[in-house]
C-alpha cells in the first residue's frame, strides 16, 4: 500500500506547494489526481518519486519510508524525456542495464510490442512522433515492473485521438502486472476513463479537497450512462474546489454546473 502521511512541501521562496496531504492507495488501484494549476499535483508526484524531499510528513510504500528514488516506483513525466543518444530499444531497456543482455532484449521486445512500436526498436528518438515517444517512455517505466507507477500529465501535449489510443496501450501494460497507478491530470474525461478513484485538489496551498470513488467497471464504454454520471460528479467536485472555501454550500448536492 502506498501511503502519503500529512505530506507538506514549502519551497525555498516560501511558496506552500503542498499542505498536509494524506492519501492511501491500495495495490493495483488507479487513482487520478485532478485540480487547477498550482494545486500541488506535480509536487506530490515528485515527492512520491523521491525526486524532492517533503518539508513535513512522509511517503511510505509497504511501510518503507521513501526518501529517494525507489526501485519499485516508476514515473512517466509530462515530456517523454528519452535519451536522444540511445535507440528506442535501449531507451526502453534503460532501467535494465544490470540484467543479462538476452533477458533484457526479450523484455524490451515484449514491451515494445505491447505499445505497438516493435518495428521502431532500432530507430532514434528524433525519428518518432510525440505520441510514439511517449509510448516509449511508458514502456520504459513498465519494464522494471514497478509496484507503483506515477504518471505526470503524460498525455497533456497530445491530441485527443492519440491520447485515447495511449490510454489503451497504458491499460494493456497495466493489465499484465497490475501496479498501483497515480495519474496527475487536468482532463476530467481522462480521469474518468482511467481511474478507480479521483482525488480533487485545491490550490494555495495545495491540499486534498475531495475524494470520489467512481465504482466503474472495466472495460469502460466512454458513451455509457455510468461514465457520464461519473464525469458529472468529477466536474462538480472540481467546480467546488475552484471556489473559495467560505462560499461552499454545506454538504451541497452535486451541481451540474461546468467548472469553466
Amino acid at each position: 500500500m502506498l501511503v502519503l502521511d500529512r505530506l507538506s512541501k514549502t519551497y525555498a521562496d516560501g511558496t506552500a506547494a503542498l499542505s498536509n496531504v494524506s492519501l492511501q492507495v491500495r495495490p493495483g488501484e488507479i487513482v487520478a489526481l485532478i485540480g487547477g494549476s498550482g494545486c500541488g499535483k506535480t509536487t506530490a508526484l515528485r515527492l512520491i518519486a523521491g525526486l524532492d524531499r517533503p518539508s513535513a510528513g512522509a511517503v511510505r510504500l509497504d511501510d518503507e519510508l521513501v526518501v529517494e528514488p525507489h526501485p519499485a516506483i516508476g514515473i512517466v513525466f509530462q515530456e517523454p524525456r528519452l535519451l536522444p543518444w540511445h535507440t528506442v530499444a535501449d531507451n526502453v531497456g534503460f532501467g535494465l542495464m544490470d540484467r543479462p543482455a538476452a533477458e533484457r532484449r526479450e523484455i524490451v521486445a515484449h514491451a515494445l510490442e505491447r505499445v505497438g512500436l516493435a518495428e521502431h526498436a532500432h530507430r532514434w528518438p528524433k525519428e518518432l512522433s510525440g505520441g510514439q515517444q511517449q509510448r516509449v517512455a511508458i514502456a520504459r517505466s513498465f519494464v522494471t515492473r514497478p509496484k507503483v507507477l506515477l504518471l505526470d500529465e503524460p498525455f497533456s501535449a497530445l491530441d485527443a485521438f492519440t491520447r485515447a489510443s495511449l490510454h489503451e496501450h497504458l491499460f494493456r501494460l497495466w493489465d499484465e502486472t497490475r501496479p498501483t497507478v497515480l495519474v496527475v491530470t487536468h482532463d476530467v474525461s481522462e480521469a474518468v476513463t482511467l481511474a478507480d478513484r479521483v482525488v480533487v485538489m485545491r490550490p494555495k496551498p495545495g491540499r486534498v479537497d475531495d475524494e470520489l470513488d467512481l465504482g466503474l467497471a472495466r472495460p469502460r464504454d466512454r458513451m455509457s450512462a455510468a461514465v457520464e454520471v461519473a464525469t458529472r460528479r468529477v466536474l462538480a467536485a472540481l467546480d467546488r474546489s475552484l471556489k473559495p472555501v467560505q462560499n461552499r454550500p454545506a454538504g451541497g448536492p452535486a451541481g451540474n454546473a461546468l467548472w469553466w
Partner: protein
Amino acid sequence: MTEAALAEGSVGAAAAPARAGNKQLDLRVLLGLVLPVGLALGWEAAVRFGLAQGRLVPPPSRILQTFAELARSGELSTHVWATLWRVAVGFGLGAAGGILLGALSGISDTSRRLLDPTLQALRAIPSIAWVPLFILWLGIFEASKVALIAVGVFFPVYLGVAGAIMSVDRKLVEVGRVFRLSRSAQVRRILLPAILPETIIALRSGLGLGFMFVVAAEFMGASEGLGYLLVDGQQMGKPDRILAAIIAFALLGKLADAILVAATRPLLRWQDVSRERL
C-alpha cells in the same frame, strides 16, 4: 572552365530532369568558384602576356611549381611534419588540460569559484604576449612553441567543456535518478553523451587555434616548420614560397578538421539537427 562547367550542368539537368534539384545545387556551389578561379586565371594571363611582372605576386602556375618542387625535394614534408608534430603535441596537452579543468569547473560549484576567475583573467591576455616569457622559461626550442600552442588550444576547450556540463538537461539527469544510477553510471550514461557534441565543437575550434598559434610559434625562431618557410620566403624575397606554405597550411588545417569530424561523426548520429553540419 567555369563556362564549361555551367554548360555541362545545364546539359545534365536537361538529360536527367529528376536530378534537376541536385544539379541546381551544384551550380550554386560552382558560383562560389567564379571569383577565385577567375582572378587566378586573369592574373596568370596578365603575367603571361607581359602586362605584369609577377615578381611580388607570383602567378598561380609559379606557386604550384614551387609547391611541387618543395614536395619533390622532400623539403615540404620536413616542414609539414615539424609543424604537425608541434600542433599535435600542443593540441594534445591543451585539450587534455581544457577537458580536465573544464570538467572540474562544470561539475563542482566550489572548483568553479576557485578556478574560473583566474582562468578568465588569464584568457583575457592575448596568448602571443606569453611568448617572451615562454622563451625565457622554456628556451627557444620546442618546449616554448608547444607551450604557446597548448595555451591557445586550452581556452576554447575549457570554456566549451565547462559550458556543456553546466547546460546538461536537468530533466535527463532526473531520468537517471529515477532509475537509481550510481554516480559513475550517471557520468557514463548521461553526462558524457550529453556533453559530447559541444565538446567536439570545442575541440574543433581548439584545433583551429592550434594552427593559428603554431605560425606565431614558428615565427619566433625555428629552423623548420611551415611557419619557418613563411619567414624564410620573406627574408629571401620569394613570395612563391610564402604562398606555397600558406596553401600547405590551408590544406593541413582543413584535413585535420575533416579527420576530427569524420572520427566523431559515428558518435553523433543520434543528434536531432536541422541539417548536416559543415
